[in-house]
C-alpha cells in the first residue's frame, strides 16, 4: 500500500524551483561584499530560534520543507544546533525572556554566519511593537543580514529570501535568476 501511494506520487509531481527577485539578490550581494563577509558555499545549514513569536511563522517554516516547496532542493536544510549552522533564522519579536538565549545561539555559531529575520515580528516587533517586554525585532539583539517581512510571510517568499542570500554568497556561480510566473 505504501509503495503504491509512494510511486504514484513520485511519478505524479515535480516541485518547481523558485528563483529570487534579481534585484534582491544583487542588493544582498552588494551588502555582503561591503561588509567584507567571507564567502560560504551553496549548501547551508539553518538553525531556527523562535524569540517571542505567535507560532504562525513556525508553521510556514515547516511548510517550506513540504513536498511543494522542498527546501532541500536549494541545498538548504535545518539542523538541530546553532553550533552546526551557517544561518540563524529568527522569528518573533525578540522579547525580554528570549533575548539572552537568542544572543547565546548566535555566539555558539561558527563564523562566518548569517542571520535572517522572518516575519513582521522579527522585523521590528510587528503588531507587538510598544509592549514593554518587546525589544523590537531580531536586530535589537543580533545583527541581521536579511529580513523576510510578512505576517507570516508565505513559504515562497521565505524561500526566495533564503535563495537570494545563497546566491549573494556564491563565488563560483554568479546569480542568474530565472523568474517564474508569480515570483517577481
Amino acid at each position, binding site marked *: 500500500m505504501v509503495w503504491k501511494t509512494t510511486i504514484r506520487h513520485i511519478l505524479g509531481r515535480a516541485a518547481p524551483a523558485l528563483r529570487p527577485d534579481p534585484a534582491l539578490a544583487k542588493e544582498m550581494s552588494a551588502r555582503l561584499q561591503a561588509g567584507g563577509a567571507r564567502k560560504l558555499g551553496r549548501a547551508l545549514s539553518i538553525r531556527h530560534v523562535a*524569540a517571542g513569536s505567535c507560532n504562525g511563522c*513556525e508553521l*510556514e517554516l515547516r511548510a517550506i520543507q513540504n513536498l511543494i516547496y522542498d527546501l532541500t532542493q536549494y541545498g538548504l536544510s535545518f539542523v538541530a544546533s546553532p553550533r552546526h549552522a551557517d544561518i540563524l533564522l529568527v522569528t518573533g519579536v525578540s*522579547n525580554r*525572556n528570549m533575548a539572552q538565549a537568542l544572543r547565546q545561539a548566535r555566539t555558539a555559531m561558527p563564523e562566518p554566519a548569517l542571520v535572517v529575520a522572518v516575519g513582521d515580528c522579527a522585523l521590528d516587533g510587528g503588531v507587538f511593537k510598544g509592549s514593554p517586554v518587546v525589544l523590537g525585532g531580531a536586530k535589537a539583539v543580533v545583527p541581521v543580514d536579511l529580513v523576510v517581512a510578512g505576517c507570516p510571510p508565505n513559504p515562497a517568499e521565505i524561500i526566495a529570501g533564503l535563495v537570494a542570500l545563497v546566491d549573494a554568497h556564491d563565488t563560483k556561480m554568479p546569480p542568474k535568476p530565472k523568474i517564474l510566473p508569480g515570483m517577481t
Partner: protein
Amino acid sequence: MIRELSATEWQAKQGRFVALWTDANFAYALYHPGELVFVALEQGGYPALAHKGAGWFMRLARDLNGHVARGFEAAPPAIDHGAAPDGSGPWPEFARHPAEGAHQVAVGPVHAGIIEPGHFRFDVKGEQVLRLTARLGYEHKGILGLMRGKSPAHAARFAARVSGDATVAHSLAFAHAAEQAAGLTPPPRAVNLRAIMAELERLANHASDVGAMAGDAGFAFLDARFALLRELVCQAAQAAFGHRLMMDRVVPGGVADDLAEGGREAILAALGAVEAELPSLRRVFEDYASLQDRVVGTGLVPPALAEAYAAGGYVGRASGQRGDARLSPGYAPYETFALYVPVEQAGDVAARIKVRLEEIPESIRLVRECLASLPGGALCLAPDPATGMGLGVAESFRGAVWYWLRLDAGLIADIFIADASTLHWPLLEHAATTSILADFPLINKSINGSYAGGDL
C-alpha cells in the same frame, strides 16, 4: 452567569475549573460551561484555589498584576523570569530529585526542531523520566496590556496573534466575548463563514500534527503526505479567504471579507483531496507494528487526571472526556449539524492520534454542510461603543479557548485570555513520566500545547 462569592464560598466552590484571573478589584474564576464567579481582592490578594488547573493562573496573576494567591505563595513565577530589560538573567535552578542515581537533563528554550521556546527540566534515572518540570513564559509578549484601551475592532489583530496555529479560534472567541459585551448578534452568513474557517483550521492542524508524530516515530513518508494535505488546505484558505492561516478574517461583529470568487471550488477540491488520501494514510498508521509500537501505551494521561484538569480537545477526548465547546447551547451554527465528537479511553499517544484522525472527516463534513447552506446577507455589523462585560468561547483544534473582557464606552478596560494549552501543560509533565526520555518529543507533539497561547 456571573455572581459574587464570599471568600469561604470562593474556596469551597466545586466544578470543572477553566481559568482564574484578576483585575483591579476582583479575582475571577471560570467553570464549565461558562459559570463565572468572583471575589473581592483584599490587600492585593485572594484565597488560593485548590483546583488542579489553577496553579499556572495564580502564578500568572501574581506576575502580571502583583496579586497574591494566599496559601500558594511558594509557587515559582510563571512569566517573570527575573530578566533585566536587555534580557540577561540567571540560569534557572531546579531542585534535584531525591532518588538515588537520578540526574537532571535540561532542554530548551532553544529546541532541536522548528518549535516554540520553552524550558524542560527532566529528572531521569537511566532512561526513565522520574519528573518533568516545564518552565514556560519564553513567548511572553504582553498581549493583555496591548489590548487594554483599544476598541474591539482594533484589538482583534492581537487576538488573532495569541496563537497563530489557532488564529481563527482565538479571533472567534474574542469576537464572541466582544459581541456579548456589546449585545450584538453576528449575521447568519458570517456565522457560517466563521465555522468554515474554524473547521479548515482544525483540519489543517490535525493533518500536519498527525504527520509530524509519524515523522517522529520514523515514518517520514506519512509526515510528507500529511504535510502536503495541510498545504492543500492552506492554499484553499488563501484562495477563499486571502490568507493561508485565515488571520484577521474573523472580526467582532462578523467577518472581514466574503468568500472570494472561486473560493468555494478551491475549498471543495482540497477537501476532496484530503478525503481521497486519508483512508490509505490511516491504514498505514494502523497496520504498521513498528509505528504502533511507538505510540501505544506511550505518554499516558489517565482519565482521572484529565478529568481533574478538565482537559479539553483531543487531549481530554483521548482520555475519556467528552467536552467540546461546539456542543454548548447557542454555539452557532453547530446545533444544526449534529456534531460527532470522538472519545477514546486509553489516554496514550495512539488515542490522541486516533481522535484527531477521526475529527478530520467530521470537519470535512461540516465545511461541506456550511458551504451548502451558506445564507446570503450582511457580513459584518459595526458594534456601537458599548459598556459591559462579555465572555466568549470557541473550540480550537486543541480545545476550548476562552475570552473575558470588560468594555468601557467601547474600549477594552480589561481582558483575559485562557487557551486550552494552559490546562494541558501539567498533563504533559505527567505523561512524560510514564515513558523514557527518548519518547518525549513524540509525547510533546501528541499533546502539542501552544507556548504562545499560554505565555500571552
